[in-house]
């Protein structure tokens, strides 16, 4: 009993320390009410995509932001998670919980193998090796004709017992629950002894060695956790999209995840979610804006988006959470400061 009270206390402290994150998460819980009264059901769809991409970006942020490992291949884990649905159904397994289970196990193993090989290197090598492994898996699925090859395969939404995913709102809330759980887990992890050590490794690997710890083991565990989170996002992505193809793990998706994190703010819990909101809103609105100015070029919104990205890199330090912190006058990493409660 006291363990439960203890846990609730921990959650309360965490929520207090990460208000921006939980404001966003609960905003997503309330969003369907808004879209219902505003008569914008389409935006529920956008919100689901934001949550899915945001979740994956949060997973990547654990290694990228907190651990300082610039992985350029996390789309592969989204893809593996998605194919866990497709391939399971191909062999007649339609239970959504089973899909999730497969996804967690497979992504964990894939993360372990890729992490073990890639983490032997650092810097540019690490970036390119993670990219290369992702490409390897991409081409693997392109060449697997049994599972649709290039064209992919259409899938049914997983059967989650009493949760009927063909009810759009139940799918919405399944995704929301996953987002909330991932947020909760990451909130604990980054503040925990493990998370603190991971951040210390990013800051100074040799000092961590001098404390008698092997950085590689921490990085590996972080890498596997982030792979699993991306895998969960991918599994739900497949159910949402009702379709899986190698496109889901195209290398540009890994780039998108990085963009989302940078936009939102590196090594912050709320950053990836905030970045996902901005990224997808830009993706939805840029074609419209461009269409209003030059109708013939509405499709070519990337011509604006590309340079916009370069501008963010050159001039936007700290991302959106950085801007929010500056506006509200709190310090960047205020939620991680040590001290008695």
């Amino acid at each position, binding site marked *: 009993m006291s363990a439960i009270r203890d846990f609730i206390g921990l959650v309360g402290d965490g929520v207090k320390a990460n208000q921006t994150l939980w404001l966003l998460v609960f905003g997503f819980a309330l969003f369907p009410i808004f879209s219902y009264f505003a008569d914008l059901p389409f935006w529920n769809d956008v919100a689901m995509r934001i949550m899915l991409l945001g979740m994956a970006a949060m997973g990547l942020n654990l290694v990228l932001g907190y651990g300082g490992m610039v992985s350029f291949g996390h789309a592969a884990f989204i893809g593996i998670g998605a194919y866990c649905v497709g391939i399971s159904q191909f062999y007649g397994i339609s239970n959504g919980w089973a899909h999730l289970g497969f996804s967690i196990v497979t992504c964990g193993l894939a993360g372990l193998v890729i992490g073990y090989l890639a983490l032997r290197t650092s810097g540019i090598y690490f970036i390119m090796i993670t990219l290369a492994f992702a490409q390897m898996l991409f081409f693997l699925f392109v060449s697997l004709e049994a599972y649709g090859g290039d064209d992919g395969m259409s899938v049914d939404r997983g059967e989650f017992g009493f949760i009927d995913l063909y009810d759009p709102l139940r799918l919405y809330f399944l995704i929301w629950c996953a987002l909330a759980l991932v947020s909760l887990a990451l909130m604990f992890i980054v*503040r925990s002894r493990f998370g603190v*050590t991971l951040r210390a490794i990013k800051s100074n690997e*040799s000092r961590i060695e001098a404390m*008698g710890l092997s950085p590689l083991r921490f990085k590996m565990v972080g890498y596997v956790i982030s792979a699993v989170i991306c895998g969960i996002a991918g599994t739900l992505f497949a159910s949402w999209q009702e379709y899986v193809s190698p496109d889901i793990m195209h290398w540009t998706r890994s780039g998108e995840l990085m963009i989302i994190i940078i936009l939102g703010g590196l090594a912050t819990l709320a950053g990836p979610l905030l970045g996902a909101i901005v990224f997808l809103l830009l993706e939805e609105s840029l074609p419209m804006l461009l269409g209003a100015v030059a109708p013939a070029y509405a499709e070519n919104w990337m011509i604006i988006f590309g340079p916009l990205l370069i501008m963010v890199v050159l001039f936007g330090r700290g991302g959106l959470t950085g801007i929010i912190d500056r506006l509200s006058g709190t310090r960047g990493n205020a939620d991680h*400061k*040590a001290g008695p409660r």
Partner: protein
Amino acid sequence: MSRAVLELQGLNKSFGALHATRDLSFCVNAGEIHALIGPNGAGKTTLIQQIYGALKPDTGHVLLNGKDITSLPVPGRVRAGIGRSFQISNVLMDFTVLENGIIAEQARLGQSFRFLRPAFDDPDLIAGARKILARVGLNDRADQRVGDLAHGERRMLELALALATAPQLLLLDEPMAGAGPEESQRMSQIIETLRGKLAILLIEHDMDAVFRLADRITVLVEGAVIASGTADEISNSAAVQTAYLGSE
């Protein structure tokens, strides 16, 4: 007869044509401050790296308390009882002083693989960290970001972190480098308090400090030991005079 904490047996290390460590053997005894001196390029840092495990010797053995640790990697050697401060302050710059202490404390306790409780709020860890910082008198700077500390304070913090693992052998690589006279004196005082408690291998260019602090001195020239003895023996050694002190 004092017991050898560190024993080096016939170490050799070459980088291409450069023979950085030549058939090198000596001991550091329990409780003594043992200084390693030599002109620039004598191979002091290369030797420290081999004791610490960052470099592997081509031949020879490193023994800690009689146990062969030659094949252990750095973290293993630290757990076996070696602590180290680096030539350039090696601390966690993005964290506060107290947070540095907390991370060291949880590493010492072997609790770094825990995922639930926030580390920086933990009263036990904070108490442990305070103890670590108290050894070098940094508790009043606990909430300072390390990036904002003065150079000398960073060196103190690094020493505190190196001591946190309760090492039997402490490697100090130029602890006074870049420090002002006051900071140097403070560092000397702290090293003095450690005398007799653990073995210290000290590399230092400040000869006054070396001769004041060291129980024994080993002189390294071109990767080989040319003399070893007490401060008096070394300052009276003709070989050292010509090879090293004379050339300064």
